């Protein structure tokens, strides 16, 4: 099975986010980026399928800060080939990212056709679209999002896909290959890879650089203002040591008859 994984970087929201000087976008100057969480699950699902059936996995991403680390980590995890799409605007919207990837894929040597393209079902910055359906449509591939399971025989031309609904319900679909899937969660949590293996990959493996083809599309939206949300209410914050705060909470719960 020949699988392509699309990876994208997003701000690490564990860190403090700041609005940039334009007042309408994030200040990315000092912002740490990480691979989008559901993209990481897509990578894991691709590796699970490779472990199960053999074949090859290619990881492809637009050139963004720290993308080399992400791609070398993917190589250390078992990806066969890593491709970086260069000469792109670093601050592409999701809609443009999907379009640029779709236009560039045919220009990547020895890549298409593949049996399966997997990526995350969404990213936390998907304001104007999601990458997965945009790439699927541009390439004329069937698309399913919120995917939680992929089953296929090694040489099969169809796959059985499990999708997430609310309340723990799963929907089962059948789709011909090639197809494009937006992963919500892999069958298993993304694997851990020791730093030593990543370092080894940096020495032994290479990331292919391919210039972007085509043009980003107009986003057709204007961001008037970006700010940290001011919620209508805010929690009353307790202060003190963990023990002091725990004691206050205990009193609070007792006063409400909850203990």
């Amino acid at each position, binding site marked *: 099975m020949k699988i392509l994984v699309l990876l994208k970087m997003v701000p690490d*929201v564990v860190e403090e986010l700041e609005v940039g000087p334009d007042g309408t976008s994030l200040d990315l100057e000092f912002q740490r980026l990480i691979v989008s969480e559901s993209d990481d699950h897509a990578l894991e699902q691709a590796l699970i399928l490779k472990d199960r059936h053999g074949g090859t996995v290619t990881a492809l991403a637009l050139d963004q800060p720290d993308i080399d680390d992400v791609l070398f980590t993917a190589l250390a995890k078992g990806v066969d080939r890593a491709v970086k799409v260069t000469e792109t605007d670093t601050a592409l919207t999701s809609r443009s990212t999907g379009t640029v990837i779709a236009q560039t894929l045919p220009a990547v040597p020895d890549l298409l056709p593949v049996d399966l393209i997997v990526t995350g079902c969404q990213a936390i910055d998907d304001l104007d679209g999601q990458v997965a359906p945009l790439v699927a449509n541009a390439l004329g591939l069937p698309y399913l999002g919120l995917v939680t399971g992929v089953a296929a025989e090694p040489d099969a031309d169809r796959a059985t896909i499990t999708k997430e609904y609310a309340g723990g319900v799963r929907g089962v679909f059948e789709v011909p290959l090639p197809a494009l899937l937006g992963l919500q969660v892999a069958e298993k949590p993304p694997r851990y890879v020791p730093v030593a293996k990543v370092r080894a990959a940096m020495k032994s493996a290479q990331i292919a650089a391919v210039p972007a083809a085509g043009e980003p599309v107009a986003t057709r939206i204007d961001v008037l203002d970006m700010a940290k949300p001011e919620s209508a209410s805010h929690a009353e914050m307790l202060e003190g040591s963990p023990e002091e705060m725990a004691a206050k909470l205990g009193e609070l719960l007792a006063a409400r008859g909850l203990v």
Partner: protein
Amino acid sequence: MAQNIWVVAEQWRGQATDATFELLALGRELADGLGTSLETVLFGHGVGDLAGEFGASDTVLAADHPAFAVPTAEAFGAALASLVKERQPRCVLVPLTNVLWDALGILPAELDGPFINFCQDVRVSQGRIEADCLLYGGKMRATVVPTGDGAVFGLASGVRPPDQGRVDRTPTVEAVAPAVPTSLRVQFKDFHEPEAADVDITQQDVLVAVGRGIQTQDNVELAEELATALGGATCASRPVIDQGWLPLARQVGKSGATVKPKLYIAAGISGAPEHTEGMKDAELIIAINTDPEAPIFGVAHYGIVEDATDVLPALTESLAAMKE
């Protein structure tokens, strides 16, 4: 050009969902604000009777097709896009739910018009439509306007009270027949129900919920101990469930359960919109998180900026001390 406001109805197993009525309430406001009509798009199979429930709208555009029973990008999404192209509404409001996920997601690929995702509210301002969106896991709000007509808005749950969208009036029903590809590649097979849960978290008075901030599987025990002391149960946000540290039936949020306990302790949960939509109506919410800017503090009643793995055992101990 028609300038109507559209709401795409979501139905799940033959029932119109709250998400639909929330959007009908919002859509009515927009239509009244712009002096135009509100139309509900009802695509489904054998659910035409639901049209009568959409009295908040002036017209229901109803299409019946076997491929609409379970919405997909290829059938539902493409047909919706073709109807948008044909009728050219001013804007289209779509619930950002798991049921309509694929059909909504394909629209920016099928249509040239604006697409605005993660909307928490949409309003008419100075004659134009603008939206407030929550990005980056709920840590940033963006106010966004489309730069053209035919904008599609993906709306989070809870934009208006659903009852506001339940209007006892009979809308006009117009049958429509948007094009559906003759050979569909994505074939729905069946639904798999979740395994019977050992604990029904929707029936608990007290829930101790853990998120990524709990750090390790062993630390989940700290939440179990507190839950036991409070006579409740544990539950979790997605990252903990995805790690397999608690069973799927314990997931709270968009893809899990919606809970309304008397007490909800959110330990190490940042409060992304996907989680808070499942717990924001709890009677008392206490949040513990190391990040003072975590969005969970916007829905909690009491907050503690601290490592949950320190506070949970301290609280368990203080409860034990109170009982002595």
